[in-house]
């Protein structure tokens, strides 16, 4: 079920919210939200909840065992088994098709055998939406319990709530249990101001998605369908347009998730903070998909040694972390290339800083924006030919090209919003007076009436 869909907006959300506040007992409320979240997940495919239940069970039991066990080597073993357990599900559903396809291609080259049955089986594996997100949440929980920074949760209901809570289930933010646990102990009474604030934030996200991201998508998809025909201006316009599209799309989902959770009395961590205002790639990753980048930092980069073992090792760690981060986005070489590209940018930033290189902030912001836009080409174009054609267009090898008026209008509006106003979760919606609230109601009505033709969220694929 999409947040930007009629069943969610006019069925699921009002019913679950009304039932949540109508139920008098706290545990019953938790149970209600868990049941509703499983239904929400089953709406995509009936068997997906079984996977989530399995992943929840593995990490929950792993956490309990880690806390009960005192011997270091056994604790390491439990942690390893727990991580392998949750990663195995992700590995099979997300990467088996990718790895199996390449393996079969390799075998084909050696033996000239095509194995059509096996190939068809491998390519028929369906990726359950949201699996990448709740797998990472389970891993962070296990590692935090192992490190002793978090007490293992004894209450399965609270733990199931953490994994399944529908606002963050499908596309994040990637929540850590330490943030949610204290909030789950409180009983949330109906608070009109908090519900209004959540609804307003949700409205801003919905509007950003259906009015801006979907509007950009219409033109970006049109131009990028034929990358070989794009001149310099159109190629840059499309690449920049895609940069704004994916930002609005994903940050809109995060705003909606934060707003929805707030309605239920839960504050989720923010995920975006106007990343295109960054003056370096390092700053970009402190503002873009923050819950993922901090996850990668805390559970991958630092355990690999971080920057504590010399420059070369740091560079290698950055490349490994970002390469795996790219692979997390999708089982495809272009995502790995995108991750490695950002790894190179991050390493390059460190080297530049050490050599005392610096630019005035406006120039640094512009340079970072262009570098990030160059990276989006790898992310968006799935084939080597498409990537090559678009880069060629951006280098002017296909001529100057016409000016795509509607796309440029959208890009100009997007740029004005991105560079002129703070990220939506920073807007003081809780203090808005009745005039602003009425304007938001109009925005909600316009956005809700646009969901009929809305696109699914881009990050659902990851």
């Amino acid at each position, binding site marked *: 079920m999409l947040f930007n869909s009629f069943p969610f907006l006019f069925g699921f959300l009002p019913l679950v919210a009304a039932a949540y506040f109508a139920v008098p007992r706290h545990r019953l409320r938790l149970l209600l939200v868990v049941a509703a979240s499983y239904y929400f997940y089953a709406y995509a495919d009936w068997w997906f909840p079984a996977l989530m239940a399995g992943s929840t069970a593995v990490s929950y039991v792993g956490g309990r065992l880690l806390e009960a066990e005192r011997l270091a080597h056994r604790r390491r073993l439990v942690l390893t088994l727990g991580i392998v357990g949750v990663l195995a599900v992700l590995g099979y559903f997300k990467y088996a098709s990718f790895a199996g396809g390449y393996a079969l291609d390799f075998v084909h080259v050696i033996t000239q055998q095509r194995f059509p049955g096996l190939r068809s089986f491998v390519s028929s594996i369906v990726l359950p939406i949201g699996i990448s997100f709740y797998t990472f949440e389970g891993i962070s929980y296990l590692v935090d319990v192992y490190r002793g920074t978090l007490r293992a949760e004894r209450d399965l209901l609270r733990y199931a709530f953490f994994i399944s809570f529908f606002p963050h289930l499908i596309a994040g933010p990637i929540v850590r249990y330490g943030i949610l646990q204290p909030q789950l102990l409180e009983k949330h009474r109906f608070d009109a101001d908090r519900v*209004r604030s959540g609804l307003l934030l949700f409205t801003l996200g919905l509007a950003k998605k259906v009015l801006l991201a979907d509007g950009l998508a219409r033109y970006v998809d049109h131009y990028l369908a034929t990358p070989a025909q794009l001149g310099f201006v159109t190629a840059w316009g499309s690449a920049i347009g895609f940069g704004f599209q994916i930002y609005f799309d994903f940050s809109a989902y995060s705003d909606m998730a934060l707003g929805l959770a707030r309605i239920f009395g839960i504050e989720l961590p923010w995920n975006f903070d106007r990343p295109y205002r960054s003056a370096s790639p390092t700053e970009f990753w402190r503002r873009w998909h923050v819950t993922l980048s901090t996850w990668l930092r805390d559970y991958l980069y630092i355990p690999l040694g971080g920057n504590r073992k010399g420059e070369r090792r740091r560079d290698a760690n950055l490349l490994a972390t970002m390469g795996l981060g790219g692979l997390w986005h999708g089982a495809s070489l272009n995502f790995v290339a995108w991750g490695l590209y950002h790894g190179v940018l991050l390493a390059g930033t460190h080297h530049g800083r050490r050599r005392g290189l610096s630019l005035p902030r406006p120039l640094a912001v512009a340079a970072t924006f262009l570098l990030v836009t160059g990276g989006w080409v790898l992310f968006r174009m799935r084939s080597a030919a498409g990537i090559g054609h678009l880069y060629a267009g951006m280098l002017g090898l296909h001529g100057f090209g016409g000016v795509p008026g509607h796309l440029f209008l959208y890009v100009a509006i997007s740029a004005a919003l991105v560079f002129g106003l703070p990220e939506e979760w920073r807007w003081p919606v809780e203090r808005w007076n009745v005039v602003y609230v009425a304007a938001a109601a109009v925005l909600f009505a316009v956005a809700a009436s646009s969901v*009929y033709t809305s696109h699914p969220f881009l990050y659902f694929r990851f």
Partner: protein
Amino acid sequence: MRRLVVFLVLALALLAGAATFNWWVDPFAEVWKPGAVADARAGGCLVSQELIGIRYYSFKRDVFAHRPTRTFVVGSSRVLEIASHPGERTFANLGYPGSAPETILKLFRALPAKPRQTVYMGVEAFWLNARYTVPDTDPSAYHLAEYLLSRSAFTTGLKFVRQAHYILYDRWRKDEVGRHCVIGRIFPSINWRVDGSRVWSWELDPRRFSKVGAAPFTGNLETWRNGYYADWRTLDERRIHLLEQALALARERGWRVVGFAPPEPPHMLHVLDTDPRIAPRWHAYLTLMPRLFARYGFVWAGLEDGARVPCRASEYPDAFHTDGACSARVRRRLDEAARRPH
């Protein structure tokens, strides 16, 4: 609390207002409007396609319900010009674009078993191409709710109102096309008689409206006749089974069914007979149908060769659909076949 109430009430009021506007203006004609058909019936008028839109199923059931029907025809858009004889009140045309065995079975199930009916069933060969997809002519309440709340309907509705202000006060109006009155809106290009049969505007007023043109056969099956015959490999067993279910239901109710292939102009019959991508399935269909109808005790009238009806090539304005004159002759052939002992 006050601001929360303001937000919810205002948002819901705006959405309800937009939905009401979309329901009233209905720019894509997805809302069934029995009132327009009732007005046409009361005033002896035709009703414009602008008001029927995709709601063929509701329209045809309404036609059946408001006539003492004893004989009706079902089939695709190619049977739509088959009309009542002058003064005849017991005939109804229940065919519609996008028909197929599944829609005919659904319609049969929805109609009352009594009184007994004589049914003329135009069976298209391309229905037995599994690639032929049946459009939704009976949208669900959920689909309708989505439509009523959609911004695209609202913005298109505003354009309609700018073009014809009267729509804000009257959802339709009486128009004159030739010597006929039509219950319509802006441009009545296709019109329906109250017996469910269709009439083109150029048939009503040849000076004001021009004939549709015939596209030549270029050999590209993807574009010829909307691609209905493209990639046709076998006779679709599922559709044959559905057709048999419809025939079995008709037999159970004691109805009399006459099957027929809608007539083809000579040059198109030649394509169907000789094009190697179509001919084997076309001939298999022509062989199967008489046997299938006979299995249930019904007659197959053929009629695929339009020249034997007889219809002239000029009586197929788009080389696909028959006009009113040819269709009247088809009706007579069907009446004769119905009188034959079954």
